């Protein structure tokens, strides 16, 4: 049985924020915080980069808009032109509606998929689920895991560090 890491359990979000900041200051890089609701400032404390979701949405929305417009231009302007009273075939004002709808559709689907992919979901199994009591992460408990894959991880030293943060409990996470 290999070790995934060490987990510390906290009572509230302030303690978790403090723990995440200290872990980062201590030089740990491969650690993860778990909380029942989004905690303000946690991303900064963990040193996370800006979410890539925003970029994915912008990119997909532009693609959607381009497809929407080109689809209509191709279908009604090139492939099956109908002359209605000499009006322009590239009738852009009415093409805007579908261009807009497809931009939203692509952007929305991208937002959903980007959240899942960047979070590594779906993922049915994860070592932290082995920790007894971890189910309270979706109720009222906060956790910090330092992974054994971290360069500075040393079972004794890391345990001492976690205990110094004043957790309720520190335990091992089996892989």
């Amino acid at each position: 049985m290999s070790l995934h890491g060490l987990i510390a359990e906290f009572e509230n979000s302030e303690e978790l924020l403090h723990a995440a900041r200290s872990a980062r200051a201590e030089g740990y890089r491969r650690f993860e915080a778990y909380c029942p609701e989004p905690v303000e400032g946690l991303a900064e404390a963990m040193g996370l980069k800006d979410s890539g979701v925003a970029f994915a949405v912008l990119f997909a929305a532009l693609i959607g808009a381009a497809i929407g417009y080109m689809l209509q231009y191709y279908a009604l302007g090139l492939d099956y032109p109908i002359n209605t009273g000499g009006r322009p075939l590239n009738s852009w004002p009415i093409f805007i509606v579908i261009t807009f709808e497809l931009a939203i559709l692509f952007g929305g689907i991208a937002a959903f998929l980007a959240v899942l992919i960047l979070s590594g979901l779906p993922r049915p199994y994860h070592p932290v689920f082995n920790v007894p009591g971890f189910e309270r992460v979706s109720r009222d408990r906060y956790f910090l895991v330092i992974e054994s894959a971290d360069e500075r991880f040393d079972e004794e030293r890391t345990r001492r560090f976690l205990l110094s943060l004043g957790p309720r409990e520190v335990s091992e996470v089996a892989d």
Partner: protein
Amino acid sequence: MPERPTTGQLVPRPPVIAPDYTPGSVTDAISEIVLKKPHTVPWLAAFAVTSLVVLGFLAGIGVLLFVGVGIWGINIPVAWGFAITNFVWWIGIGHAGTLISAILLLLHQEWRNSINRFAEAMTVFAVTCAALFPLLHLGRAWLFYWLIPYPNLMSLWPQFRSPLVLDVFAISTYFTISLLFWYLGLIPDFATLRDQATSRFQRIFYGIFAMGWRGAGRHWHHYQMGYLLLAGLATPLVVSVHSVVSIDFAYALLPGWHSSIFPPYFVAGAIYSGFAMVITLTIPLRKFYGLDGLVTDRHIDNMAKLLLATGLVVDYGYLMEMFTAWYSAERYEMFTLYNRMTGPYAAVFWLVLAINIGVLQLLWIRRVRRHLLSLFVLSLVIQSAMWLERYMIIITALHRDFLPRSWGMFAGTFWDWLLVIGSIGLFFWLFLLFVRYIPMISIFEGREMVHKAAREAGVR
């Protein structure tokens, strides 16, 4: 008896969440409805009744597909009867859900957190009901895929300049985005249900939908950005959808339809009828499931105020529609208005005005807004009036247009009414399932509200 507040004195508002909740107890209060509570007799009875209605709905659709749209009352000149009325009505009801979940989120209206979940569910189910009607109205419903642009052997394309094709794109985008928004909001709550599950089946069932959500900092980081952006995308979308629906009418040269006020007027009408539906759903839900601490009187009061505000915008639309008809001095526009007021459908016109302009004003009175039974009855009355309004707009414009020799009358048949009642049954059938198997209030946002309330209490 509370004293009447004098000028300058702040009226203490009820809190958005009862003060005695903790993060743990709010989690239990919402999740136990799904996980632990047994089926109750009222729920089973309601489910049995709506199931029967859904069966009737399916029978109505079956006969329609087998015989054809001739079983409805539609004919020339009134070719858009109940089907389009129902379509506009249902799609409008959906709009309030998006308003609550997306627009109020962007405006930082925290009270929305208690009601956004079931308002979103309402949107998804209402759009489901709405989308059925144009398809059934096609006549040969099994050829619906001709509306979608795909390379085909007939070398034909849909006419993208037609609002009816724009509708296809608007409605399918709206349904997809509403569903994704709803599901994204549900993922952390499915994880909660998985963790609190009392049986292996529940753990696996909700575990599949939670997709391995662990509440990690990285999850929340991406999640919050994604949720915010979806809200930002849904906000212009919801305005565009009913605008597109309204150009189905405004595009035509028919007096009574050909009007540039239609897009904003329809959007306001949509949100108005939708808020009435949210109130209709909220009042019994919080009574039967004892959610008074989460959906407080503040919510009810706020929704009633929004109902009044959007209703007044609709009233402005009525007024401007009539004013424009008169000011245009256009013979056919004026005739349509005159025909609405005095013609064979005058009763519908005056009933709509009496409710949407007259009865609506009762909401100015605080006692009416806070009195649950009268607000509930009022919301039902308003929804009926909004159905009649769409009926009035469609029928009165169509049945007497330019040439008297092409005039005609319309009346709904048994099959028309069966599909109206059937779609209402389908809506409530889906909603009853939702209430039992999906947390009807966002659990993690409930925890957030508790923390926020605790922080505010600490400051004071």
